[in-house]
């Protein structure tokens, strides 16, 4: 198992404790064939507790989804056992088909083919609203 270190891949660190699995689902990691480790409730100086995801492959991926979960998340890119780059995700302006609107009165409940879109409505409170009904996004 690759808990200790990975040679080539990505380590997503400083995930708020308890949200690692949500991120796993959002990134559709279950569809990958490579090694993946989810570490929950690791000790963290910054956060107290945190989750960590280790992925044994460089993914061509839009990391802004991570910004939706928490912009303090750190993305470490590992090559040949060394960290070559470190990034913090930016908050995406629009989330398209990443989370679903949970308002039962929203048009997306009856029009199945509509993309579920959310717009960043307030950077301070990091809140997203459905572009159609303006309901606040609720975490899955």
């Amino acid at each position, binding site marked *: 198992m690759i808990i200790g270190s990975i040679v080539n891949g990505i380590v997503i660190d400083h995930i708020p404790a308890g949200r690692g699995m949500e991120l796993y689902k959002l990134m559709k990691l279950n569809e990958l064939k490579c090694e993946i480790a989810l570490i929950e409730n690791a000790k963290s100086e910054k956060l107290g507790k945190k989750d960590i995801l280790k992925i044994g492959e460089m993914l061509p991926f839009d990391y802004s989804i991570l910004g939706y979960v928490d912009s303090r998340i750190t993305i470490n890119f590992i090559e040949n056992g060394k960290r070559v780059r470190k990034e913090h995700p930016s908050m995406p302006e629009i989330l398209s088909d990443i989370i679903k609107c949970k308002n039962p009165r929203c*048009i997306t409940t009856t*029009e199945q083919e509509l993309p579920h879109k959310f717009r960043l409505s307030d950077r301070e409170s990091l809140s997203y609203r459905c572009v159609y*009904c303006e309901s606040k996004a609720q975490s899955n």
Partner: protein
Amino acid sequence: MRHLIDISDLTRDETNELIETASDIIVNPDNYTNKCSRKKIATLFYEPSTRTRLSFESAMLDLGGSVIGFSSAQYSSVSKGESVADTVRTVSCFADIIAIRHPKEGAALVAAMNSPVPVINAGDGGHNHPTQTLTDLLTIVREKGRLTDLTIGCCGDLKFGRTVHSLITAMARYSGVRFVLISPDELVIPEYLRNGVLKRENIPYVETRSLDESIAELDILYMTRVQKERFFNEADYVRLKDSYILTPDKLAHAKSDMRILHPLPRVNEISTAIDYDPRAAYFRQVRYGKFIRMALILKLLEEAEE
């Protein structure tokens, strides 16, 4: 393409222009009878709302245009499950402008995203109903002569009443406006209005439970219905309901030039004994609704041609 989905799609200047056009139509209706000849409006009403639909249709007819559409989703291919997007794409082959009413929130935006002709939101569930707000603004201007320096009382269900929410948002753009928010504790205005509009824009307001105690200071009284379903128990409803019913007794304390508005339909929140009081503006408000819709149709069609 320019649409009207949310009242905030219009700037304050544009709103003022619409009110001016509507006022000109009221004074010089003959100048407008052929403005939209050979133009068609499609009224797509996925849920019945007779008053709103008739208002749009008479607006277009008075501009010399004509009307197509449906008045409930039971008709037509809509009942076979056609999407809003497909219906709008089809209808826009026949119509120059569309007014849509739909029970789901966001439906009008979906229509606009798929329409090559202007779309007007005629109500999308409990979400937006911008032509009602324009109607309310025109009513205030016609009845009071101004949109500034007014004490506006909003009474009844301020929690779920979308007409009140958009009225507060729209009136917050004018100077010297003060709100008196009259409701039971269970039905006060939502946080986003209190913090996001009133406090942020430094607009003076008070929240009170008593219509009796506050009616004397009002220039406008905007009434809405307190619905039984909004209460957790019957006893609370029975205890409270009469406090939010406007009766001649309560009206006796109001200013002689106060005006009473109501989005209608009324159930029992305004006693019929008040209907012939000059302060009762709610039936005139329905007439103003047609004139502001005429102004809006004109504006959107003109912009579409440019």
